[in-house]
């Protein structure tokens, strides 16, 4: 059974159709990329999957369950985690504090007015694991708001990972980054995909990242699906080229 099944989802804002009858099926363990020109509706699409917005019509099924009307926090509990186009973290807290909160919430401790030493230690261990995985060892005690773009993004991804998600949504993880940082984030995502066997859906503009990572690609343009296929197929697709070249011109 597929992990995520988006069925004919449409989202309107008044007369503007941001997402137009889009369907997508993601199998467990896949790394799917969603690409398209600016304004194609990619982030709105993510907002629909993560629960930030409700679809005007259509269904979203996650692991056999209809989550179309489920609130964002509840989708997180079901196993969907996401990052945002503009990195959303806790700027005046340190990396470890950021991760600690994520780990505690994931462990179900969010309402606890007190935590035992044993559990606290468990949390610390997990936090350090994530710090290592994200390559944040050098900056673990620094305020996240002061970190480089790449480190902030890694922090955000690690926070999402702390939630032990079954589906990870990454919205333009390499946006605004230079070559070196892009490379590091790409490596991080690859590690997550391979070692943690995470199912990942990725919005990206950077083609190198896409072709490096994606199993399949879905192309959105003006809210609708333009094409779908393997990287090779998409690379050769003329309609896709036109959509992008049209943008460039």
């Amino acid at each position, binding site marked *: 059974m597929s992990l995520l099944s988006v069925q004919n989802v449409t989202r309107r804002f008044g007369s503007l159709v941001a997402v137009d009858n889009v369907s997508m099926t993601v199998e467990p363990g896949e790394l799917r990329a969603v690409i398209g020109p600016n304004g194609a509706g990619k982030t709105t699409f993510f907002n629909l999957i*993560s629960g930030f917005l409700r679809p005007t019509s259509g269904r979203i099924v996650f692991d056999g369950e209809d989550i179309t009307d489920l609130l*964002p*926090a*509840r989708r*997180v*509990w079901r196993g969907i*985690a*996401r990052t*945002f186009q503009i990195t*959303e*973290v*806790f*700027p*005046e*807290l340190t990396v470890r*504090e950021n991760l*600690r*909160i*994520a780990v*505690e*919430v*994931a462990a179900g*401790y*969010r*309402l*606890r*007015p*007190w*935590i035992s030493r044993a559990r606290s230690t468990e949390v610390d261990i997990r936090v350090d694991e994530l710090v290592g995985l994200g390559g944040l060892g050098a900056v673990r005690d620094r305020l996240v708001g002061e970190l480089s773009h790449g480190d902030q993004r890694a922090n955000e991804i690690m*926070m999402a990972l702390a*939630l032990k998600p079954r589906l990870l949504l990454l919205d333009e993880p390499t946006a605004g980054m230079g070559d070196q940082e892009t490379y590091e984030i790409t490596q991080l995502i690859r590690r997550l995909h391979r070692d943690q066997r995470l199912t990942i859906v990725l919005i990206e503009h950077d083609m190198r990242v896409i072709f490096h990572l994606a199993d399949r690609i879905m192309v959105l343009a003006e809210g609708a699906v333009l094409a779908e296929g393997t990287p090779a197929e998409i690379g050769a697709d003329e309609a896709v080229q036109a959509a992008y070249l049209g943008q460039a011109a």
Partner: protein
Amino acid sequence: MGVSGKRAADVAVWVLLLTMPYWLNWVGGYTALGSRVLVLALAAMSLNFLLGFTGVLSFGHAAYFGLGVYGVGLTIKYLVPNTLIGMAVGVLVGGAAAVVIGALIVRLRGVYFAMVTIAFGQVFYFIAFRWNVVTGGDDGLSGWRRVPIDLGFTTIDILGNDKAFYYLAFICFAGAIAIMAALLRSPFGRTLLAIRENERRARFLGIPVEFHIWLSWVISCVFVSLAGTLYALLNNFADPHDLRWDQSGDFVIMAVLGGMRSFWGPLIGAAIFVVLQDYVSSETQNWMSFIGLFFVLVVLFFPRGVLGLMQRRTAA
């Protein structure tokens, strides 16, 4: 400031507070003033639980303060002349109001939330003011006093003995503060920090934001009501002015002045504010202008507060 530095500071503060009645006279104060600082500091710190640590601006906390004030006054005057029962009533009434009102407003945010808290604050002021048969109206509720606490084996004369009252206030203060501090250090407390730092991210970690804000609101208001009961007992009087928006504003400015991001900040803010207000109102008729000017200056030049300023210095 390292961890041991913080702990030393904590100990120093507790020692100072514990012994205040004994050294306050040397610096030109008097025990009742110390009680006043303690009570208002409790109010300001309770507000700051919501404001500085959860990131939610309430400008109507005087309502719950006032419910504590009138709760204890009305109970002692009309129901049972017993201080502890009166305090319990005050806290319960304040808490109940907070539970209900919190549920109504918790979906709102930012300026809208602040406006609504102001309006609700006004509701209670208006009730205290208008229902003068019961509350004494503009004249306030007088004709009652704090009742010495009869513990069976001994009676604590909080009425005649200023020091005794101070220690009653201190015990309440210490209990409330200890609970709040423990909560802020707990996983629950950290979810509040998360909400302050980035509400969207908190929501997308799976934190039910509205529920947690409601909890923080209720905790904050309950302890402010406690402060209100102590305040009324201190003055042997219930004043509708304790419910007005300027009282709410005073609490906020105490928190900001001392430093919203630090735990002890509001205590320092309260101390400064109380002393300043005491001094200014005895010197001039136009104390209102001075307080207003004070607000303006703090906002423009001192937004991080006293402790905020100090933190920056140690970092550099």
